[in-house]
């Protein structure tokens, strides 16, 4: 510490805040150099696009003509004059409300249940549960299981058992599209948050449980609420962010299973609407409004859930 004192003859209290900051900036300038390449790319492809989408959403930009500011017109059109957007909004919320919490609690409880198993068995179960989330290629098996003809697994057995007499067009029937897509989404949803929960549980000091038992914790549920969850609060937050961000982003799975668009737009989500206006029609201004609404939904629910999670164990 004495070396530092020699290097800095003027004490902090003798400097204004600005002087101090400038001095620290000079002293640690290397930090800016180190983050510069990453931050440049991060700003260029994440921060600026978000800001830009807010600005562009107030215009009628279409990549051909010089844009005019039309202010809230895109948003008014979205909410009052675009039935398809309302369908997409409704489906996105249904998807998010069902798959978000379900995948979150599925990840949490599975991680909790396997926590006390021997490490080898735990590793195998972890692999089994995590594998679908990284095997995008295996998604097609659901099309085989729920194929339209009688050679599909579901139809084959339902016909054989006499429950139905004609094959069901699973991924093309409005009645089944949403439930099936939700099931498949859940199948792929035990991802990063699941691993974070496993790690968080492993990191809890076991003596806490023993102390808790002495202090009158009666069953494993009380233990979960009063000891386990509060000890891994940071992981719960991180897992929630991963789950929420994932839950609003569904679209790829629906397109892969049902084609685009799905029958009667039964599983049409905001990200489809975005692709349609941005990718096919080049109504960039309007598409930016859609993406900004999606951005606000994701941020809003993330910040809300963070607030709620702070109450865990209190």
């Amino acid at each position, binding site marked *: 510490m004495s070396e530092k004192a020699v290097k800095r003859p003027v004490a902090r209290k003798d400097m204004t805040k600005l002087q101090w900051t400038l001095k*620290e*900036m000079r002293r640690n*300038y*290397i*930090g*800016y150099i*180190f983050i510069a*390449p*990453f931050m440049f*790319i*991060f700003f260029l*492809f*994440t921060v600026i*696009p978000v800001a*830009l*989408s807010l600005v562009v959403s107030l215009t009628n930009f279409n*990549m051909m003509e010089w844009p005019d500011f039309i202010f809230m017109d895109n948003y008014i059109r979205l909410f009052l004059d675009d039935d398809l957007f309302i369908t997409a909004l409704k489906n996105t919320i249904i998807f998010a409300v069902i798959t978000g919490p379900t995948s979150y609690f599925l990840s949490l409880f*599975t991680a909790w249940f396997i926590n006390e198993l*021997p490490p080898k068995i735990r*590793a195998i179960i972890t*692999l*089994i*549960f995590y594998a679908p989330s*990284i*095997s*995008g*290629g295996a*998604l*097609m*098996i659901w*099309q*085989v*299981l729920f*194929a339209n*003809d*009688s*050679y*599909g697994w579901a139809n*084959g*057995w339902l016909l054989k058992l006499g429950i139905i007499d004609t094959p069901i067009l699973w991924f093309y029937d409005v009645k089944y599209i949403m439930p099936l897509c939700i099931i498949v989404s859940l199948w792929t949803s035990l991802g990063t948050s699941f691993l974070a929960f496993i*790690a*968080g549980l492993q990191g809890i000091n076991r003596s806490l449980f*023993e102390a808790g*038992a*002495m202090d009158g*914790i009666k*069953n*494993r549920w*009380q233990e979960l609420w009063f000891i386990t969850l509060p000890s*891994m609060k*940071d*992981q719960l937050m991180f897992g929630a*962010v991963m789950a929420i*961000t994932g839950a609003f982003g569904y679209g790829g799975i629906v397109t892969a299973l049902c084609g685009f668009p799905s029958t009667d737009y039964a599983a049409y989500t905001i*990200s489809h609407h975005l692709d349609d206006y*941005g990718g096919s029609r080049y109504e960039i201004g309007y598409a930016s409004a859609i*993406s900004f609404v999606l951005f606000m939904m*994701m941020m809003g629910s*993330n910040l809300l859930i*963070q607030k709620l999670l702070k109450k865990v164990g209190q």
Partner: protein
Amino acid sequence: MAKRLKDKKMRTRNHEVVLNRSVGGDLGINIFLVIMGLFMFLPMLYTVLQSLKPLDELFYYPPRFFVRNPTLKNFTDLLRLMGTSWVPFSRYIFNTIFITACGVAGQLVFASIAAYALSKVKFPGRGFFFKLIRYSLMFSSTVTSITSFIIISSLGWMDTYLAIIIPAWGTTLGLYLMKQFMESNITDEMLESARIDGATELRIFWAIAMPMVKPAWLTLIIMSFQGLWQSGSSIYIHSEQLKTFSYAISQILATSIARSGAAAASGVIMMIVPIFVFVISQSNIIETMGTSGMKD
């Protein structure tokens, strides 16, 4: 094992269930795990079995789960189907490997040096930058897809590898995990003594910090790899000879049962690599995730 024995000992010694584990609860948990495990595992297994079925077994009615006469014909069919496309099959594989390798390498270099600076160099503003990173985890790239498109096209990167590789370098999850891991696994004292010895920050980063956070950079490599390996069709790439393996394989869809064998074979090829990579690195990933928590 030792942990389990200790549990039992505690139960018997005090003549009460010290760790609050009821037999009913254990049973319920095991039933839950078996049912969920089957739900997760059977589709994966079925993909593998389906890929090994000869044509006549694909047409069994009612469908059979297991394969009677396993064959690799679906895999050779797949190669034949891919051989008929006018871009050579090897070109798709090259594209995927090239994009994945460049994307992962750049992400590793830029994200780890930035993570080091954010966690261990005390420059003013680091809190602000890290907050931005944290917020960026709260929305997906779908949100930025439209305006990124404008930026990439105005940079003139349309129909080049750059459009996929460079944005991948700015992915924040890997940086976030690495920064958190460095924060709790490298003490300032270790770095301080090296600084006093006159080592440059770059040297400290490379020779001291990086070797200590091996699990974190392995995790970063794997996450970045998983994303890029599966990158399929992209709005930025039009030329057939620049498209990826995953795109080429997705063209052989399960449109008919006759093709479902080849489609399953393609699914197996696509999933085997990420799963294998995860298996060999699982313990490192879990270790990294141990510090993934979000503090205020």
